[in-house]
């Protein structure tokens, strides 16, 4: 089982990238589990075709008495979807919510039952507290990839995430696999991002061009791979999937 965490600033395109990666891995013949780790709980919307109930929603609704089937939902191809979810906005603790969702998944034996070849955690990277750092820790993910653009705020968030990973360096946790440049057509974007990546001890492993086909697919609540399988964007995501596997397989 290969376990991958995708981090990045809110709104940078993590969920779009992760869902398309899940779909691409599925096309390559892998069983994939995608776990959304964002209180918005919309990471898997385009993969499942609808917004699935989150683990925390179900815990709230069913008073902690839930089964695997309450939290794992089938998605496109051989993919399975889980959303950690979050507390009611304005109260509670979103980071702790991620930890609770992870503990519940382990307790219910989600990994053993669904036996994914690849697990993808899609994690909000603006706040790297104990909860949002959970996928980096204790064997949840083997590699972390950061989605960024050449914009300052995206690179700042990327730098924080890289710092958290380095903090855990002595604990044998997840390694930083590389940067995924989700292009925003910033001037000299590749050079700016690559320089920043190098300062973080990393590099860009692939670029995702800006393309309107992504919005068209999202309008259909689908991934690009599902909605426009022959498009150039689909090829970009498939290329990214291969690059990620190359990194993970050494």
């Amino acid at each position, binding site marked *: 089982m290969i376990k991958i965490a995708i981090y990045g600033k809110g709104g940078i395109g993590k969920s779009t990238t992760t869902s398309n990666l899940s779909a691409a891995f599925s096309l390559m013949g892998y069983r994939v589990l995608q776990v959304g780790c964002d209180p918005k709980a919309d990471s898997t919307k385009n993969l499942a075709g609808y917004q699935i109930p989150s683990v925390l929603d179900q815990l709230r609704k069913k008073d902690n008495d839930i089964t695997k089937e309450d939290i794992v939902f089938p998605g496109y191809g051989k993919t399975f979807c889980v959303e950690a979810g979050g507390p009611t906005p304005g109260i509670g*603790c979103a980071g*702790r919510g991620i*930890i609770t969702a992870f503990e519940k998944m382990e307790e219910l034996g989600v990994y053993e039952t669904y036996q994914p070849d690849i697990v993808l955690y899609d994690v909000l990277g603006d706040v790297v*507290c104990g*909860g949002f750092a959970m996928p980096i*820790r*204790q064997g949840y993910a083997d590699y972390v990839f950061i989605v960024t653009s050449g914009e300052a705020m995206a690179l700042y968030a990327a730098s924080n995430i890289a710092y958290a990973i380095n903090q*855990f360096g*002595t*604990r044998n946790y997840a390694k930083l696999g590389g940067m995924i440049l989700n292009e925003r057509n910033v001037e000299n974007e590749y050079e700016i991002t690559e320089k920043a990546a190098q300062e973080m001890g990393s590099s860009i492993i692939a670029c995702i061009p800006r393309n309107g086909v992504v919005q068209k697919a999202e309008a259909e609540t689908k991934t690009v791979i599902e909605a426009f399988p022959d498009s150039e964007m689909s090829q970009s995501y498939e290329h990214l999937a291969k690059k990620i596997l190359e990194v993970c397989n050494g």
Partner: protein
Amino acid sequence: MYLPPYAPDYSGVCSALFELSGIVVIHDAGGCTGNYTGYDEPRWYGSESAVFCSGLREMDAVLGLDNELMEKIKIVCNERKSPTNFIAILGSPVPMLIGSDMKGIASELEKQIHIPCFGLDTNGFHIYHKGIAMAEKAIAERFVKQPKTKKERGINILGMTPIDFSLNENSEDLKKLLLKWGYDIISCFSMGASLKNIAEAAQAKINLVVSQGGMQLAQWMEKKYHIPYVAGIAMGKHGEICLQKTLEKALEHQKSYIIGKYEYKKDTFEKNTASNFDLPKRILFLGEQVQGISWRAAYREKHEHDYIQIGCIFGRDDELAEYGDIPLFDESDVIKLFLSEKYDVVIADPLFEELIPNEKREHTKFVKFPHIAVSSKIYWDSVPRFIEEKFESYK
């Protein structure tokens, strides 16, 4: 509110590690450590066991100052005169809420000081036996060695702490019985064994689980070392007969057994519990599950007919339970049970007596059976010698 909180998971860990010459650090502001040392540990006063509070403060939590915790532990290590076998770092409610990485901190510390370190995710919200289970498994995973040979009648005791057995003669009584039956006690988790004994634990042919806290280690050792287990203790003369038979059967067939377990079916249960049932008595044992099932086994060995139900106040382990044994998560569940059901006899910690509604007290005999996880020091000197021969189940 009638009951104090039950002994929590960190108390279970501390109790299980108490005698093994390690350093135990509870990462808390002081209340959790004080709860353990003041209320859950009858051995504390006068002992030399190294249980410390990390002195967690607001800014430590807000800023996640793991390094300061590690530095404090290093100071304790350096100043300690006796050798330190291991260091266990335990969580409490605040580290749990902020997601402190106890295992990661321990792993980092071990690299720096070269002493075995464990991080245990206790949080104060779970019951003590989860802590016993965590601690015993962590110790076994680290120190038990692959056996070169097996001892024919080698046995380990799993899950034994003063929280369930008190400091009276119960633990020694049980060990004497095993010796009388010709068993060779290799190690006792976690009263009266050294790490050297524990290292040899996999030489056993059988494990004896004496509390809910010992179940996890028993299952792990069965999987890893193919050692079957018996869950049960000998409560009184008839309990002795029961336990001896069960152990011999398990040893001979190399198969695990739960003492006295009936494979009740739903219809049998409903027949037995119907309002017009013709059984002589209806008895409720409220307490630790292995004690409950052992008491029931001893009772059946002698009387056979009465219907005995176990109220699992520390959570129900389904492997130990029979159909009809009920999980009771808090005192409101116990009150609801007393309101809806009628029992002739209730056996429980004295603090439960107040929960029986007034109108039912006259018809219910209450048998006091103190448990340290419930009533702490109030009754810890009154825990009965339940292993010895003259202890009898109620009739």
